[in-house]
C-alpha cells in the first residue's frame, strides 16, 4: 500500500530527559523516524525538551520545539502547526502517555490530527495490565495468573488455587518494597501480611511466579497489510526475576530448539495481530526450562530500549521502518537500507552473537542498594558483537569501562565460598564477575545453576574462559604457542590479560602476535548472514578468516565515542561525537567512529563512514587505527572515556588531534593546573592533594572550613563532599576508608569551599583565538555539582566586569594551554573575585545547549580548528559573543526514585541522569517550562494545597522567607518540621501542620495531597538522618522535591510570574537561533 495521501505534516513527540529506563535509545529512534518521514516527503514537527539530543537538531525536523511535554504545551504547538498526523510510538513511555492524554483530552479530534501507526486501542490494550490479560485470555494465550487481594486469607485462597511459588507485590510502594516470593502457604502468610502492611492502601497483587524460567524477547513488526516479521529474538542470561533492562542479554536466543523458537515466534505474531499494532512491538516471554510451557510477561506496543538493541544487533533499523509503516507503506514496499535492493519484509539472519551488559550507577552511589530485581537500575548499556559467546562477553566487559579488562574484580579474590554463594543467589551488578570467581574457586556447574537458575549453556561458556586462563597461566612468553595465543584472542582475551596470565608485558604479547601474524579481521553486520551482497560500513572484530573492510580513500580520522550512558557522562557526548563525524565529512575527511553503546545515534551505521562496534579499550582502538591507517584521533568529544585513552594512544604512536596531551595533563592534574593558574595570575580556590587523613586535617585547618573534598581524575564529581569542621572531615574520610568500593580514593583533593555564584563557559579555541558563545550562570550556590544545577543562559546576574573577567581568563587559559578545539571552564564568583574552579579540555554537557540556542555549531568549529583552520576565517566571530535575546534555563532530572538508599539531596556529587531545557522571553517563564517539563510535576500549587517544608538552620534566610510568604499569601497550606515551623512563626508566617517525624509526614500525606516539598540538608548523603528520610519519602510518594533553597526561590518566582500573565506562545528552535545569530 502506498503512503496515506492526506498526511503532509506529522508531529513527533520525543521522550524528554534521560531517566533510568528511558535513555538515549529514543534519541536514536526519534532521529531515525524524523529522517525517515522527511525521506517520504512529509513535513516533520518535533517536540522534545531534551537539548542533548541529535533529534532536536534543526536539520532533523522541519520545526523543532524544545518545549514541555505537557498537554497544555503540545496543544499550543498543534494549534499553531496544524499537523495532519501524530506519531506517538517513538518517544518511549513519555511520548506514548502524552499522546494518549492528548487523545483523551479531545485535542486530536478538535484539530483533526490522526494518530498514525499503532491505534490508541492497541496502545491501551498493551499498556494496561488488566486489559492485556483479558485480551490474552480471549486469544487463548497464557499470562501469569494474578489477583488483587486485601487480606492474608484471600491471598492464600488464591495461591492455593493457582499453585506456588507466588510473587507478592504491594500496591504503591517503591520498587516492590515490602513484597517478595512465597514458596508455600506458611511463607505466604508472612509475606502477604508484610506486603499488606507496607502498602499505603493495604492491597497486594498475588501473581504466579515464573522466577527462574528463561526470559525470551521478540521484536516484532507489523504493517497495515497484516504482514508480520520478527526482527530478532533475544535470550536473557539472567532468568526471569531480574528486569530485562538489568539483565545480560544475548541475541539471537541460544538454548531454544527451532520448534520452541517458532512456537514463540508464532505466538508473537498472533499477539501483535490481536493488538493491531502498526509498527514495532516488543514481546517478552517466560519459558519453562524443563518443558515447552510459556507465559507472556509483557508487551510494549512501541519502539523501546530492546528495539534499539535489536536494531543495532541485526542492522535492521526498526524505528526508521516503523515510521514508514505509520505512513501506510507495506513492509514489502520499503527497501532494506542495508543491502539497498532487498526489502524490509524479511527476517534478519545473524552470523554472529550479540551480548548486551547493563551499566549501573553504583560506582557513583556506593551506598545504594545494589540488589537487582524487578525495578530497573541501570543507566545505560554496552553491546558487543563476536563470533563466539566468550569473545562477546569479554568484549562487553571491556566496554563497560569499570576498570576491568577481564572477568576479574580484585576485591573478589578474598571472598569466601559463602560470600560468593550469597552474591550469586542475591544478584547484584557484579554477578558476572562473581560467577568467574566462583568457577575459579571450584564451584561446580550444578551448584552455580542451583544458586542462580542460569542455563548451563552460559555457565559452560564462563567455564571455558576460566579454563583458558588456567591453560595460559601454565605458560610463559617462551612456551606460549601461537596456536594457544590465537585461541585466546579468538575467545576475546585482551593482550593485557594474556600478558598477566603468562607473566609477560602486553608489549611482549603484541610482538608475539605480530611474529605469528595474528591480527584481527573485521566482519560486516549485514542483516543477512552474507546471503546478499552488502556494503554497510558496520564492522566488528574477529580473529579468523577474511577481513571485509573496504579501505577508505583519502584522509581519515578516528572519532572516539563515549561508551555507555552513566551519571556524569550522558547523551551529550554522543551528540558531540555524531557532530564531529559530520563535521569531518563536511571537510572532506572520512570519519571512522568507535563506540559500543547500542542506544545511540553515533552507532547508527549511517553516521560514520566506517563504524566499529568495539570496546573503547586501548588495544581495541589501536587495532582499528592500524587497520584504517587514520591520520589521527579526536578525543575531545567522547567525554572522559576518550580523554582517558589519549595518553595511551599517543604513546602507541597515534596522533592525538587538537589540544596536546601535555596540555590535557595540565588541566587534569591539580598541581600542574594550579601552577598554570598562578603563572597566569588567575585566582584559584586554595587547596591541595593529600594522601592521608593527617594531611587532610592539616590542610583543612590551614585553608579554613568549610572545605570540599574529592578524589582525583574523576567524572561527575564522584565522592565529593563538603565538610564544615574537623569532626565531619574525619568522619567522612573514615566512612570512605571503611567502604569497600571507596578504597582507592587517595590522593584526595581538599579545597577551600567558597559558597559563591557559579558560572561556566564552553569555548572553541584554535591555538590563538577563542570564541565564547555565552556564559551559563548556575542558580544554586557553589557546592552543588554543575551537572545538578539549574543553569541560566545568558548569565543574567553577572556584571559586565565579571563577564569580562570570565572571558579574559578563558582566553588566557586557552592561550597558555595552546588549546585547539573545545574547552569548558567552571568559575566561582565571590564578590569581585572570579575563581577558576576547573578546566575540562573537552566537550561538556552544555555544548549541545549552547550550540542549539546560539546557532553556533561548536563541535563543527572545534573539528575544523583541530584540522588547522583558524576561527577568524570561520565567520562566527571571536571572543565573547553578544548575548542572545531570549532566556534559556537548563534543569537537571533525577532517577532517584529507582535507586533505594540514595539521598535525593543536591550536593557536590552528581546525581541527575538527564536534563531539560526551558526557553522563554524571561527567565521566570523559561524556568517554569523547565520545572514543569512534563505533566503532574512542579506545576502550580492549588489554593489550600499542602506544601511541606523542612529547612536546615543555614537556610533560614530572607529570600526563602519571602518566597514562602508569597506562596502562603497565594493560598498554599504549609506543613513544617518543628524547628522550621518555629522560625516561620517568628517571621509571621502561619504554619498549618507541624510534623515531628517521618511517620507524621506519612500520615499527613495519606490525608492530603502535597503540591511539593522543600527539604534542605545540613550535610548530604548520611543515612540515618531525618532530612534524608524525609526526602526519600517524598520521592517515593511521588511528591516533587526541592533540596536547595535557590532552586525553590526561582520556582516560586516563575509561578508568581505565570500567575501574573500567561506565558508567551512557544517558538521553534530554528526561529529562535536565527534571532540569536541576527543579534550577533
Amino acid at each position, binding site marked *: 500500500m502506498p503512503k496515506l495521501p492526506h498526511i503532509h505534516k506529522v508531529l513527533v513527540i520525543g521522550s524528554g530527559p534521560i531517566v533510568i529506563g528511558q535513555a538515549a535509545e529514543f534519541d536514536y529512534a526519534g532521529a531515525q523516524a524524523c529522517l525517515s518521514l522527511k525521506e517520504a516527503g512529509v513535513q516533520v514537527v518535533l517536540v522534545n525538551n531534551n537539548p542533548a539530543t541529535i533529534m532536536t537538531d534543526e536539520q532533523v525536523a522541519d520545526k523543532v520545539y524544545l518545549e514541555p511535554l505537557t498537554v497544555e504545551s503540545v496543544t499550543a504547538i498543534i494549534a499553531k502547526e496544524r499537523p495532519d498526523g501524530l506519531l506517538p510510538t517513538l518517544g518511549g513511555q513519555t511520548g506514548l502517555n502524552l499522546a494518549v492524554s492528548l487523545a483523551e483530552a479531545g485535542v486530536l479530534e478538535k484539530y483533526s490530527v490522526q494518530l498514525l501507526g499503532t491505534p490508541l486501542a492497541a496502545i491501551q490494550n498493551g499498556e494496561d495490565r488488566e486489559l492485556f490479560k483479558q485480551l490474552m485470555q480471549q486469544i487463548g494465550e497464557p499470562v501469569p495468573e494474578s489477583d488483587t487481594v486485601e487480606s492474608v486469607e484471600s491471598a492464600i485462597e488464591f495461591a492455593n488455587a493457582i499453585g506456588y511459588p507466588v510473587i507478592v507485590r504491594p500496591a504503591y510502594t517503591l520498587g516492590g518494597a515490602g513484597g517478595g516470593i512465597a514458596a508455600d502457604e506458611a511463607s505466604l502468610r508472612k509475606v502477604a501480611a508484610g506486603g499488606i502492611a507496607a502498602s499505603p492502601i493495604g492491597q497486594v497483587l498475588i501473581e504466579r511466579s515464573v522466577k527462574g524460567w528463561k526470559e525470551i524477547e521478540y521484536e516484532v513488526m507489523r504493517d497495515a*497489510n*497484516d*504482514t*508480520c*516479521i*520478527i526482527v530478532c529474538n533475544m535470550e536473557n542470561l539472567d532468568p526471569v526475576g531480574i528486569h530485562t533492562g538489568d539483565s545480560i542479554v544475548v541475541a*539471537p*536466543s*541460544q*538454548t*531454544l*530448539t*527451532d*520448534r520452541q*523458537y*517458532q512456537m514463540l*515466534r*508464532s505466538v508473537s*505474531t498472533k499477539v501483535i495481530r490481536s493488538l493491531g499494532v502498526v509498527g514495532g512491538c516488543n514481546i517478552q516471554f517466560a519459558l519453562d*526450562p*524443563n*518443558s515447552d510451557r510459556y507465559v507472556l510477561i509483557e508487551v510494549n506496543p512501541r519502539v523501546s530500549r530492546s528495539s534499539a538493541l535489536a536494531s543495532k544487533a541485526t542492522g535492521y533499523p526498526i524505528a526508521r521502518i516503523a515510521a514508514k509503516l505509520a505512513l501506510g507503506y*507495506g*513492509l*514489502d514496499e520499503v527497501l532494506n537500507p542495508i543491502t539497498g*535492493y*532487498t*526489502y524490509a*519484509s*524479511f*527476517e*534478519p*539472519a*545473524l*552470523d*554472529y*552473537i550479540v551480548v548486551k551488559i547493563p551499566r549501573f550507577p553504583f560506582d557513583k552511589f556506593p551506598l545504594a542498594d545494589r540488589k537487582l530485581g524487578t525495578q530497573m537500575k541501570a543507566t545505560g548499556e554496552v553491546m558487543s558483537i563476536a*563470533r*563466539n*559467546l566468550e569473545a562477546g562477553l569479554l568484549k562487553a566487559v571491556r566496554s563497560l569501562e569499570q576498570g576491568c579488562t577481564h572477568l576479574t574484580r580484585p576485591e573478589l579474590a578474598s571472598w569466601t565460598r559463602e560470600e560468593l554463594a550469597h552474591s550469586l543467589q542475591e544478584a547484584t551488578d557484579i554477578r558476572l564477575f562473581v560467577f568467574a570467581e566462583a568457577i575459579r574457586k571450584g564451584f561446580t556447574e550444578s551448584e552455580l545453576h542451583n544458586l542462580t537458575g542460569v*542455563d*548451563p*549453556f552460559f555457565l*559452560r561458556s564462563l567455564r*571455558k574462559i576460566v579454563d583458558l586462563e588456567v591453560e595460559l597461566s601454565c605458560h610463559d612468553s617462551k612456551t606460549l604457542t601461537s596456536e594457544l595465543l590465537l585461541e585466546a584472542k579468538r575467545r576475546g582475551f585482551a593482550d593485557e590479560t594474556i600478558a598477566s596470565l603468562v607473566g609477560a608485558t602486553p608489549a611482549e604479547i603484541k610482538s608475539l602476535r605480530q611474529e605469528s601474524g595474528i591480527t584481527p579481521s573485521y*566482519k560486516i553486520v549485514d542483516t*543477512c*548472514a*552474507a*546471503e*546478499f*551482497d552488502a556494503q554497510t560500513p558496520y564492522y566488528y572484530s*574477529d580473529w*579468523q*578468516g*577474511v577481513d571485509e573492510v573496504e579501505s577508505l580513500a583519502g584522509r581519515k580520522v578516528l572519532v572516539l565515542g563515549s561508551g555507555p550512558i552513566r551519571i556524569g557522562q550522558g547523551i551529550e557526548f554522543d551528540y558531540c561525537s555524531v557532530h564531529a563525524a559530520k563535521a569531518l565529512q563536511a571537510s572532506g575527511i572520512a570519519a571512522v567512529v568507535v563506540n559500543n553503546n547500542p542506544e545511540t545515534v553515533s552507532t547508527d551505521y549511517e553516521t560514520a563512514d566506517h563504524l566499529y562496534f568495539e570496546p573503547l579499550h586501548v588495544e581495541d582502538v589501536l587495532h582499528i587505527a592500524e587497520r584504517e591507517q587514520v591520520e589521527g584521533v579526536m578525543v575531545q568529544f567522547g567525554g572522559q572515556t576518550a580523554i582517558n585513552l589519549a595518553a595511551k594512544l599517543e604513546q602507541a604512536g597515534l596522533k592525538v588531534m587538537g589540544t596536546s596531551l601535555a596540555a590535557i595533563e595540565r588541566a587534569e592534574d591539580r598541581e600542574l593546573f594550579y601552577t598554570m593558574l598562578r603563572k597566569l595570575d588567575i585566582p584559584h580556590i586554595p587547596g591541595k592533594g593529600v594522601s592521608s587523613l593527617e594531611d587532610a586535617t592539616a590542610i583543612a585547618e590551614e585553608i579554613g572550613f568549610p572545605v570540599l573534598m574529592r578524589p582525583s581524575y574523576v567524572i561527575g564529581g564522584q565522592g565529593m563532599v563538603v565538610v564544615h569542621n574537623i569532626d565531619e572531615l574525619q568522619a567522612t574520610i573514615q566512612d570512605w576508608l571503611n567502604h569497600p568500593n571507596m578504597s582507592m580514593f587517595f590522593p584526595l583533593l581538599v579545597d577551600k569551599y567558597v559558597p559563591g555564584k557559579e558560572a561556566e563557559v564552553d569555548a572553541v579555541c584554535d591555538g590563538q583565538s577563542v570564541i565564547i558563545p555565552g556564559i551559563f550562570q548556575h542558580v544554586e550556590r557553589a557546592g552543588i555539582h554543575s551537572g545538578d544545577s539549574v543553569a541560566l543562559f545568558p548569565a543574567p546576574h553577572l556584571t559586565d566586569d565579571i563577564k569580562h573577567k570570565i572571558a579574559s581568563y578563558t582566553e588566557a587559559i586557552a592561550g597558555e594551554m595552546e588549546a585547539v578545539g573545545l574547552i569548558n571552564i567552571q568559575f566561582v564568583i565571590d564578590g569581585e573575585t572570579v575563581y577558576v574552579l576547573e578546566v575540562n579540555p573537552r566537550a561538556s554537557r552544555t555544548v549541545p545547549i549552547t550550540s542549539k540556542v546560539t546557532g553556533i555549531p561548536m563541535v563543527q568549529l572545534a573539528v575544523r580548528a583541530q584540522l588547522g583552520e583558524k576561527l577568524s576565517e570561520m565567520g562566527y566571530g571571536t571572543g565573547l559573543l553578544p548575548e542572545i535575546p531570549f532566556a534559556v534555563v537548563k534543569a537537571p532530572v533525577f532517577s532517584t526514585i529507582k535507586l533505594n538508599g540514595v539521598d535525593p539531596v543536591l550536593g557536590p556529587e552528581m546525581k541527575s541522569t538527564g536534563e531539560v531545557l526551558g526557553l522563554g522571553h524571561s527567565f521566570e517563564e523559561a524556568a517554569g517550562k523547565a520545572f514543569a517539563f512534563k505533566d503532574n510535576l512542579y506545576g502550580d500549587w492549588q489554593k489550600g494545597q499542602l506544601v511541606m517544608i523542612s529547612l536546615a538552620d543555614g537556610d533560614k534566610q530572607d529570600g526563602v522567607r519571602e518566597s514562602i510568604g508569597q506562596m502562603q499569601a497565594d493560598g498554599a497550606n504549609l506543613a513544617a518540621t518543628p524547628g522550621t515551623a518555629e522560625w516561620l512563626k517568628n517571621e509571621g508566617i502561619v504554619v498549618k501542620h507541624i510534623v515531628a517525624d517521618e511517620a507524621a509526614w506519612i500520615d499527613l500525606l495519606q490525608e492530603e495531597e502535597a503540591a511539593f516539598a522543600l527539604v534542605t540538608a545540613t550535610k548530604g548523603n548520611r543515612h540515618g538522618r531525618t532530612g534524608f528520610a524525609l526526602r526519600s519519602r517524598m520521592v517515593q510518594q511521588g511528591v516533587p522535591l526541592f533540596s536547595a533553597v535557590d532552586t525553590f526561590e526561582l520556582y516560586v518566582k516563575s509561578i508568581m510570574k505565570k500567575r501574573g500573565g500567561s506565558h508567551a506562545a512557544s517558538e521553534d528552535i530554528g526561529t529562535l537561533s536565527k534571532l540569536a545569530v541576527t543579534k550577533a
Partner: protein
Amino acid sequence: MDRENQSLGTGYLTLESGEVFTGKLYGAPINGFGEVVFHTGMTGYQEVMTDPSFAGQIVTFTYPLIGNYGINEKDYEAAKPALTGMIVSELCMEPSHYESNMTLAQAAEAFGFPILAGIDTRTITKRVRQDGTVFGVISDQPMQVEEVVSLRYKHAKKSLVANVSRQQVERYPGTGEHVVLIDLGMKQSILDALLQQGCRVTVVPFDTSFAQINALAPDGLLFSNGPGDPEHLLAYCSEWRKAVEQYPTLGICLGHQVLALMYGGKTEKLAYGHRGSNHPVKDMMTGKVYMSSQNHGYVVKEESLDKRQLTVSYRNVNDGSVEGLRHVSLPVFSVQFHPEAHPGPSDTSHIFHQFLQSMRVVGAKRYA
C-alpha cells in the same frame, strides 16, 4: 571434558578451486563430498541434518554456534540424514536442553557423516555466493584439485531422488481425506501436517505409476520436496501429469518444480539457492507477505511457463522469482517454499488448509 577430546583431529575442506580450509573433524571418520551450500537459519540444525533435500550436499551453517541444544527425539525430518557433511564455526560439545539426548557430533558419528568445525563459515558463504555452485570434499587430508573434480563428476551422475525415496508403500490411518503422498525425498513434517489435518495418508515411492495411484483411490495428491536437479525427473513427468489431471494436487519444493515440468515449463539453477528460515514470499492474489522456510537450489523459469495452464501465485519479495503456481482451471497448485516449516516459521501453514479445501470441493462435486 577437554574440547579436543572428541575431535578426530585436524580436518580439511578442499574446494574444486583448490582452496583449502583447515578445521577440526568430528562425527564419522569418513570423507564427505558434495555441493557446498549454506543455510542461514539460526536454529533448526537437526531438521536440516535430516531433510532429504540436502542429499549429496555439504551444508554450511552461517550461524556460528551450532549444537547448543543437542539432538532430540522429536525433530527428525527423516530416519537418517542424506547430507554428506556439515561445516560449522563453533560446534557445541556440551548441549543444554531438557530434551537433548545426544550431541550433534554424536549424531553425526552415528549417522555416518563428518562435521568440520572451527571454520570461518562467513568466508565459505561469500565464496558460494560469488561462485555459485561450489563442489568440495571434507577429509582428514587436503586433497588434490583433480581428485575433487573427479568426485564431482562421479557424484553428478547419481540419481538423488532414487536414493532418498522409499521402496515400499506406507499407510497412515486417518478419518479425513485420503492423500497419496509421492515421496521424492519427503520431510517427516509434511506427513505430520497432513495427519494433523486428519487426513489418511498413503506414502508411495517416487516411481509409482498412474495406474497404481488410481488403484489407491485418493482424494488428492501431494508431491513432496526432494533433492537435486528436477530435470533429472523429466522421464516421470508424463505419467505424473496423468494423475495430476485427475486429482487435486499440491506440490512442495521439488514437487512444485516437477509440476512446472509436467506442464512444459523449465527449471534452472539459482546462483546460490534459497536456504533458510527468513524468505519473504508474496501472495499475488491478496498482496500479503509471509515469512517462509526455504531450501532449494533450482527455480521455475517464469518465461518458460504456459500461461494458459499455470499462473504464478507466489513470488519472492527479494528477487521476484517464482514461489508458487496455480493451475488456471484444475485444483492443482504448488509452492516452492515449505508450508510444513521445521525448521522455520509456520506462517504459510494455510497452504494445507487450501489443499484440504480443494479436495473437499472436488469430492463434493464428484459425489454430488
